[in-house]
């Protein structure tokens, strides 16, 4: 029977206490991941503290699959910063650089124009019809840190769901069959 038989035996021989311990340890993993994520949200003040670069519009600085750490503070937005913004009718946020800023005298209002480093023109073509500027409310955060390649894991998982299911299945089996 070999390995498969051994695994089946180990599933058959499961005790109630053992199952409970494993369920709890699995729960601990999931909840600690959630705690880290929510904690990062609190610290960075950004709705999504980590984003994966999906397009090549910021190459060669950021390539597809790189990870950016975001920070959202009350500091005013200035030209040259790399911001992540969400347009009203688009689902996927965009990571581009600010090239023009017009900040009002008394109010907090600000007009922002962005451009991808690797694009020829500015982003007015991406904005909604007739929209000339981004406002503060569009900005989700500014990029402060960078980690290469790590984002490929999520890109592969979203584009090839089968791999995701295989991975989850294998991990689940491992948790069930492993003995401390």
């Amino acid at each position, binding site marked *: 029977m070999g390995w498969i038989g051994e695994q089946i035996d180990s599933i058959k021989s499961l005790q109630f206490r053992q199952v409970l311990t494993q369920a709890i340890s699995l729960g601990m993993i999931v909840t600690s991941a959630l705690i880290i994520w929510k904690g990062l949200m609190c610290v960075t003040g950004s709705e999504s503290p980590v984003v994966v670069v999906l397009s090549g519009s910021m190459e060669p*600085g950021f390539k597809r699959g790189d990870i950016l750490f975001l920070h959202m503070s009350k500091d005013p937005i200035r030209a*040259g*910063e790399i911001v992540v913004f969400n347009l009203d009718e688009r689902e996927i946020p965009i990571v581009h*650089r600010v090239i023009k800023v*017009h*900040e*009002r005298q008394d109010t907090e209002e600000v007009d922002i124009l962005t451009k991808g480093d690797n694009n020829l023109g500015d982003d007015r073509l991406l904005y909604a019809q007739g929209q000339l500027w981004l406002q503060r409310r569009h900005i989700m955060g500014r990029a*402060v840190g*960078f980690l*290469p390649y790590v984002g490929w894991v999520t890109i592969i998982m979203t584009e090839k769901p089968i791999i995701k299911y295989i991975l989850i299945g294998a991990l689940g089996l491992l948790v069930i069959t492993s003995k401390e």
Partner: protein
Amino acid sequence: MHSVMLRANALLTFSVTILALMCAMASLSDNFNSPSPTAQVQVLNIYRFQKKRNGDDEVSLTFNMSANLQSLFTWNTKQVFVFLAAEYETPKNALNQISLWDSILPSKEDAKFWIQTTNKYSFVDQGSNLQNKDFNLTLHWHVMPKTGKMFADKIAMTGFRLPETYR
């Protein structure tokens, strides 16, 4: 079989930890670099200065610039993004920043340069406030690391003024 899996797991965890530690150290080592970049800009000619049909002032100019940003590069630097922005205040806006020109410096050798060019992006005001307007030309740079924290700073150059009349 279990021991093989456990060993693989331990090895993976260990190598990922070491890799993360090395990334953090590479990023931290950037803090020991205290750069001293230099830049000079000359506005050569304001060859167009007019009010657009919607009432906003528009300027086209040629300038030359020499800069040495080589000291920004460390072993953890992937590239330096550099841009020149016109900055001024108007009655309506506390701050206007308009990028006129930008470039990517991929290596230390490219970071010492002299360039003469026209503005790459349009220099358009929000309104008509540019006649006789004093403005700064600020050279900004954004150091993009191979991994870790990004750095940005600038050199502001003052004493530029737009002409009194349209041309």
